[in-house]
């Protein structure tokens, strides 16, 4: 597996210049996730109105894969109904686990993370922002 497949352009760009990175003071929901193995420590902050995510930010220290995943996820979350997020996460994990799977339409740009699935040791990094998000929902 080549290095470029893991550290593809989209991951390196989101790592260097992440979207929605920083505090969100008026968040209505907050969740945290920690990966003891690599030391990632990630917080997700959301504003949820009428059962839909209207704002999303992330913060913390994380590796490039986690950061890129959080950056893409915080973009993608806007407008998503919260009651579907648990099943969305299942779809995301299934997409990572099977490199032959075709893009999942409703996951949009998150499909760009599929190559991470070929690095089993790093799949957890791509999932960490999801775990923090679902914890925020309680």
């Amino acid at each position, binding site marked *: 597996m080549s*290095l470029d497949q893991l550290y593809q352009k989209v991951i390196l760009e989101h790592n260097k210049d992440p979207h929605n990175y920083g505090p969100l003071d008026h968040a209505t929901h907050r969740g945290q996730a920690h990966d003891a193995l*690599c*030391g*990632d420590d990630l917080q997700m902050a959301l504003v949820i109105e009428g059962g839909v995510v209207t704002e999303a930010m992330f913060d913390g*220290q994380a590796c*490039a*894969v986690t950061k890129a995943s959080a950056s893409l996820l915080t973009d993608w979350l806007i407008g998503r109904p919260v009651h579907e997020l648990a099943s969305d996460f299942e779809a995301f994990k299934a997409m990572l686990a099977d490199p032959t799977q075709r893009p999942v339409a409703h996951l949009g740009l998150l499909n760009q993370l599929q190559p991470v699935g070929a*690095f089993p040791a790093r799949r957890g990094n791509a999932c960490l922002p999801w775990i923090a998000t679902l914890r925020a929902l309680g």
Partner: protein
Amino acid sequence: MTNGLDPHALRSQFPILARTVHEKPLVYFDNAATTQRPHSVVEAISSFYEHSNANVHRGVHQLSVEASEAFEEARESVARFLNAASAKEIVFTRGTTEAINLVANSFLGASVRAGDEVLITHMEHHANIVPWQLLCQRTGAKLKVAPMDSTGVLDLEAFESLITDRTRLVGIVHVSNALGTVNPVQEVCVMAKAKGVPVLVDGAQATPHLAIDVQALGCDFYCLSGHKMYGPTGIGALWARQSHLEAMPPWQGGGEMIKHVSFTETTFNEVPHKFEAGTPHVAGAIGLKSAIDFIESVGVAQIAEHEQALLSYATEKLLAIDGLRIIGQAKNKGPVISFVVESAHAHDLGTIVDHFGVAIRTGHHCAMPAMQFFDVPATARVSFAAYNTHEEIDVFIDALNHARAMLVP
């Protein structure tokens, strides 16, 4: 470059070092996690299984005699290696962790009282934290922690002031796996002894790099792991003063550790067998002896000198990199360098240099409190052994620069 040790010649004794990783020659810099084994160690183990395999101390037949002799020879070898007064002071364990747990359970377990104290340092491996924590939770004793300074050096004055008349034991790491710091164990023992407190030394990272003389150190317990010193996994040893072992109750029951068993009463075996319940890891002990033979054939002093040269060379090269900070800058260090790079997470550095064939460790190194002290979630760590070369450090530095170019904005 070095006096007497030719790492290139040594490498031929380690078949694994000839392999490639991601189509690049392997550069193995994760020796603090586990070293590689020379062919002689693998051969000693397979030769035992193929020629002398039997249970020990049980049979009258020839194979059992041979196995028992080889096992006890291995004990003698560990005793000599540590300059123990007698082989009776060597208990075989699964490794350092089990040795520490043995002391926590047997030496302190039966006698410690609520309000008693165990004193450790801020740079301990989890193996020298958690067994004491469990003991304290069970008994109401208190775990106290001696601080270190910003270079990763133990604050000896503070350490001494933390020894009280309730201190029941001091636990200290000889060489820190996360920072490289070599602790002044002899001074620590003098301070503890002055107040009658026994000292346990976690020697896992020291035995492959330093000449160990437990009598000169003045400690009471010394723990080691075979796999950190070119030997097999699953075998280690506890050295303890014989008087302690005689006084300590057994901690696990079973065969081997008994003299006589009836349903009403059991008489325990003599030391050290009293602490070795069940069939021991005979092949592991034989492999450990072979590893000690390897270290002694190369020479502990020669190994140390070579590794210190690698440490200086790598430190200088790393410090020349923009945004790189070395965590743990004690003057007296083992061949371990922990570092962080601004805007580049350790996990990514590890993955990228791996694709250049370079194996390094990333994470908290089982020393989370030390990481918290330096306010870093994780570091990257390189650690050297006798077979590493200056050329390998150059390969690593190139790989690291490549990683920085990918990750740093």
